[in-house]
């Protein structure tokens, strides 16, 4: 009996050890590129790609060059402004849409949801051809890409209501009913009951909306249309290394740019990770 018990324990310990081994390998693989990225960003002896990781000469040259020789600051500013506006507007759009679809019952609700489902099956990019023409007619492309991109990102953002609707659906409807009997209008139900209860999903929505513009490439590239001053960081940094010759000249500078973008976003993200996890695990499946 005891022998068997010991065997069980040993087996368990072995399998746990095995799992730890895998997890460590996985962690190394996942962190390795970032480790390399950071190292290469501090490399001073050469600006092209090399076959080793640790720089032979450490320094801030790449960072300094990034600000003095390229329009990195402009790109950064552009992206930040876009991200702030998008996170505010998109959050409002998404939350009103999902609240309405989750809580209010009105004629055409199902139809509206079906139409949005169908619209979502078109690749978003095909709208760009005509939108680009219209926006450029309004002077919102090229150097003025920032307001143009804000419009493009936010205007139809309400179509991404699924996750937060999934969350709202889990808030018991009898709370609405109780509040309405207690004397609240629907507007008061929203502000006094639903909003305070929805803090996780609101933060999740703000966070994802804020992070979206930092990673977008497709729309930003099309709208900026090779105008340096209208690019966001993604397009600008990609532009730095888009040709073989520029890659040789700017590679380490690109790494430095990558670090400058990744670090604040990662810190923000990790500090709000709890809400992100809650949103993904809660809303995504139900959505």
């Amino acid at each position: 009996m005891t022998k068997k018990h010991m065997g069980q324990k040993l087996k368990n310990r072995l399998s746990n050890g095995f799992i730890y081994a895998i997890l460590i390998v996985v962690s190394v693989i996942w962190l390795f590129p970032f480790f390399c990225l950071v190292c290469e960003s501090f490399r001073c002896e050469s600006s092209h790609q090399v076959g080793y990781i640790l720089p032979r000469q450490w320094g801030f040259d790449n960072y300094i060059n990034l600000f003095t020789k390229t329009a990195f600051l402009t790109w950064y500013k552009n992206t930040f402004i876009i991200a702030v506006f998008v996170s505010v507007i998109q959050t409002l759009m998404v939350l009103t849409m999902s609240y309405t679809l989750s809580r209010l019952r009105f004629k055409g609700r199902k139809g509206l949801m079906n139409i949005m489902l169908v619209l979502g099956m078109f690749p978003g990019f095909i709208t760009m051809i005509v939108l680009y023409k219209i926006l450029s007619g309004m002077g919102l492309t090229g150097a003025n890409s920032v307001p143009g991109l804000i419009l493009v990102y936010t205007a139809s953002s309400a179509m991404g209501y699924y996750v937060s609707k999934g969350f709202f659906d889990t808030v018991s409807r009898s709370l609405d009913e109780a509040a309405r009997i207690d004397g609240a209008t629907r507007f008061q139900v929203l502000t006094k009951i639903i909003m305070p209860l929805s803090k996780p999903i609101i933060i999740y929505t703000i966070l994802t909306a804020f992070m979206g513009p930092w990673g977008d490439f497709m729309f930003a590239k099309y709208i900026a249309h090779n105008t340096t001053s209208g690019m966001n960081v993604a397009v600008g940094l990609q532009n730095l290394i888009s040709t073989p010759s520029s890659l040789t000249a700017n590679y380490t500078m690109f790494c430095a740019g990558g670090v400058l973008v990744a670090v604040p976003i990662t810190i923000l993200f990790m500090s709000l990770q709890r809400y992100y996890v809650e949103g993904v695990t809660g809303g995504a499946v139900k959505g």
Partner: protein
Amino acid sequence: MARVKLTNVKKIYDNKVVAVQDFNLDIADKEFVVFVGPSGCGKSTTLRMVAGLEEISEGTIEIDDVVVNDLQPKDRDISMVFQNYALYPHLTVFENIAFPLRLRKVPQEEVFEKVAEAAEILGITEYLNRKPRALSGGQRQRVAIGRAMVRHPKVFLMDEPLSNLDAKLRNQMRAEIILLRKRIDTTFIYVTHDQTEAMTLGDRIVIMKDGYIMQVGTPDEVFDHPDNLFVAEFIGAPKMNTFKADLVFEDGEYYVKAFGAKILVDGEKGEQLKKQQTKPQEIILGVRPEHIVLAKENEGIKCTVRVNEMMGSEIHLHTVTDDETNLIVRVPTIGLTQKQRNDLQAGHVFNITFQGKVMHLFDVETENNLLK
């Protein structure tokens, strides 16, 4: 003053399902009315129409002679207690109870007074600063009641308020609601699926089935004079025994023949049958388990015990007659010797009978009570 009057109220859902059929009821001021019935009978829907949470498809609902069909819930001066309490999780108990007052912009001083008073009555003063999730089910239900009573509504609606509580707590809360009702003294509409709650709480009981009202009456009326087979079987526990029998008329008296026995319908019921000149026919006979008594050997109806349920103060015997009809018999233990108790085990055969005055006679076709 709050009289609630429902006239020809109907609820038809979008998918053409009729949830409530032609509901007529006049609820007097300060009356306690209970809607009772099995799930899906339309009782909650009716209540929610009174509350304004469901649209009224047809008919009118009046509160104090004002048609409220198009009024929002907040304008009807009603309050409601929900089955799952519906407490606002992000607010403290105090703020939960104060919520309706805050929406009405009642001055802080008065809010405090009223909440404190309600909390005092319900005995939840010490929890005022907690969040609902830190409370037990019974305490939550008290908070919900407090929130409903704090603004002294005209009509107090309760939708299965005790269903989520365990049996012991339910009995306790039931008693408290009776006391509470004396204090608040307003019109109550109470929905439940539990006939005990209905019987103990209601001034009048509305028994519903499939959207129709089966009977409206005081607890005594629905127990003693069920209008139809459904009410007869629904009210009372264990449920009434019902079986086919024959009503015969011999020598100027009505008799019921069942299982070979012939029982005189005497007293009021016999008189009534005579007055109505009911014609002899096949009937459904209903006899409550507690009205069945032991008969002498070779008399009455022979039954075999299948299951013996010892409840303490009484024994419920699930028996079967010779023609395979199930009968439940309720035997008080107080008059039985230990030997008699021991005898009443499965397989035991004994004879039973019942008196004519306790019988309920129903039409086979319509299932309505033969006595009008």
